């Protein structure tokens, strides 16, 4: 028995080596955070979909998708992708920038083509391709809408995410864009990118301020909580809510011309698809690829909402 147990990994190892050595196939490794919250759930969905699509379209490509629950787990995944799956290219959305810079650099040293998504590494020169959303633009676009909608001035409240760089960038750009306008930010509080906290914080804002003209919820999960709190207080006629991300429920409301959520600001979880498609091109085309791809954060309005609506996505 013992001998058999020891042999099994050896045999499977040989098989794996055999397969990768003989096949002309190219392997792309994809390493992303697990679906622990709404946006990440959407990102996982798009990664799965793109994997299916690419493998069907290009039989010579095989894609290995691994999800991690922490930065250290993701570092282990990266080692496995190189050692076991012998990848030719890596698409990675780092859990955190700094701790994963080293592990990604190690993968690069094996001659692997590197695509980094969303969160940049702390060191330049490692990645071949960088695909990211634009948190600064997301904050700015949201503030521009506020200025346009409340051109005569007004009082707004801001619900923020989790204290992180992403939140700082969005909030900073939002406040900078509002500077000099006659829009008054009554207060801002963290709502941790979730519905329950969105509900609670908004309840308290409603109790505290008798006049609120607009709400920047920054995130669609927060926005769902805000909507319920506003309805409970029966104040849906006095204000409007700007969320962010592109959750299907909110996009649907925008599409239907809901008064309370007239617009949404995109921060697409499908950016992982962009990154995977670009990386696949590396093996099937001679088009130059290397460089940075910064996706826009357009305003989703009733007119264009249909193109951002994915009814099958969990987000």
């Amino acid at each position: 028995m013992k001998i058999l147990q020891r042999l099994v990994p050896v045999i499977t190892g040989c098989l794996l080596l055999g397969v990768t050595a003989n096949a002309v196939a190219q392997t792309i490794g994809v390493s992303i955070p697990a679906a622990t919250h709404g946006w990440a759930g959407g990102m996982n969905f798009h990664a799965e979909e793109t994997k299916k699509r690419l493998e069907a379209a290009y039989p010579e490509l095989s894609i290995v998708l691994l999800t991690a629950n922490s930065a250290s787990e993701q570092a282990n995944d990266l080692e496995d992708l190189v050692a076991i799956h012998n990848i030719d290219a890596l698409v990675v959305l780092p859990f955190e920038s700094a701790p994963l810079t080293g592990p990604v650099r190690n993968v690069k040293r094996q001659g692997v083509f590197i695509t980094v998504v969303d969160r940049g590494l702390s060191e330049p020169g490692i990645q071949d391709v960088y695909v990211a959303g634009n948190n600064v633009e997301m904050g700015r676009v949201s503030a521009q809408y506020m200025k346009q909608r409340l051109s005569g001035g007004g009082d707004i409240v801001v619900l923020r995410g989790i204290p992180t760089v992403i939140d700082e960038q969005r909030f900073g750009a939002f406040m900078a864009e509002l500077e000099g306008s006659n829009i008054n930010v009554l207060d801002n509080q963290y709502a941790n990118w979730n519905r329950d906290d969105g509900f609670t914080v908004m309840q308290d804002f409603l109790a505290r301020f008798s006049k609120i003209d607009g709400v920047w919820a920054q995130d669609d999960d927060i926005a769902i909580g805000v909507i319920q709190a506003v309805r409970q207080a029966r104040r849906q006629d006095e204000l409007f809510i700007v969320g962010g991300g592109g959750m299907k429920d909110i996009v649907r409301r925008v599409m239907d011309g809901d008064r309370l959520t007239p617009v949404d600001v995109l921060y697409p979880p499908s950016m992982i698809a962009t990154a995977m498609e670009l990386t696949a091109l590396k093996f099937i085309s001679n088009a130059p690829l290397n460089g940075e791809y910064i996706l826009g954060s357009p305003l989703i309005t009733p007119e264009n909402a249909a193109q951002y609506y994915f009814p099958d996505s969990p987000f």
Partner: protein
Amino acid sequence: MPEKYFAAIDLKTAGPFLALIALIVIGMLVNEAFLSTGNLSNILARSSFIGIVAIGATFVITAGGIDLSVGAMAAFISGCMILIMNSLMESIESSVTIILLAILASIGIGALAGLLNGLLTTKAKIEAFIVTLGTMGIYRSLITYMADGGTLSLNFTIGDIYSEVYYGTLLGLPYPVWVFLLVAVVGYILLNKTVFGRHCFAIGSNEQVALYSAIHVDRVKTMTYMLQGVCVSIATIIYVPRLGSASGQTGILWELEAIAAVIIGGTVLKGGYGRIWGTVVGALILTLIGNILNLTDAISNYLNGAVQGIIVIVAVYLQRGAWRKKKH
């Protein structure tokens, strides 16, 4: 001797109430909106989730156990209720029947989950900390799996009717507050006026002695976990109608908040002594802190956690005053 004894009990009981009154005064000073009926009813309704869970935790902790799985369990049961209601839509016409069935299922799942925790602790002889840490991970991943990493949403038709359970009021108070009160009264009677309650105290004080006193230690301990499970399901029954959704983020850190509420209220973490009304006050204190911080911009957002930490420690300091006196 007897006088001293009474003085000690008095301070123990009064401690959490003093902290609560101090917080209410602070709230009034911070913002006049604090005392508005809308805000007060928000606070009461909000504290009912943690409060009900914490009443169950009072039994578990009094009997010398601990349950870390309650937050994940709440998320898991919420998810089950939503899936059950959505799937019954096709076969059953009446929304009210569907909601009642989901409530029954919720209580059943809660009791079973508690039974599992209890049996693993008592029969398999695994420490409660490890058992419930394990089940916490299991329920947390199950809800994430059930929701596909996203959010489960209740069907709107049912959601509209069910939402009355959270948003509706009786005599000016939201239903969740009544449920909270009812659970507290039943919990008080169970812990202080029944044999079961006395057995909880005895086991928490000294399990060996309780065993020699012919107390069915395993059975009583398992029942505390089942009681905890049922409390979680009751909290879930009033939580689901609020937002009509459940996700991997539902109930995050509820276990710590519930344990904190229990300890602030004067129950001893190592078991042997428990107070239901203290727990109720503990839950109110925790909710009040968050509410007051949202009502002021005098304190930087970045320091919210620090303020919460200080208040919790001060509240317990007040309440433990009696013990310090005893020693000297």
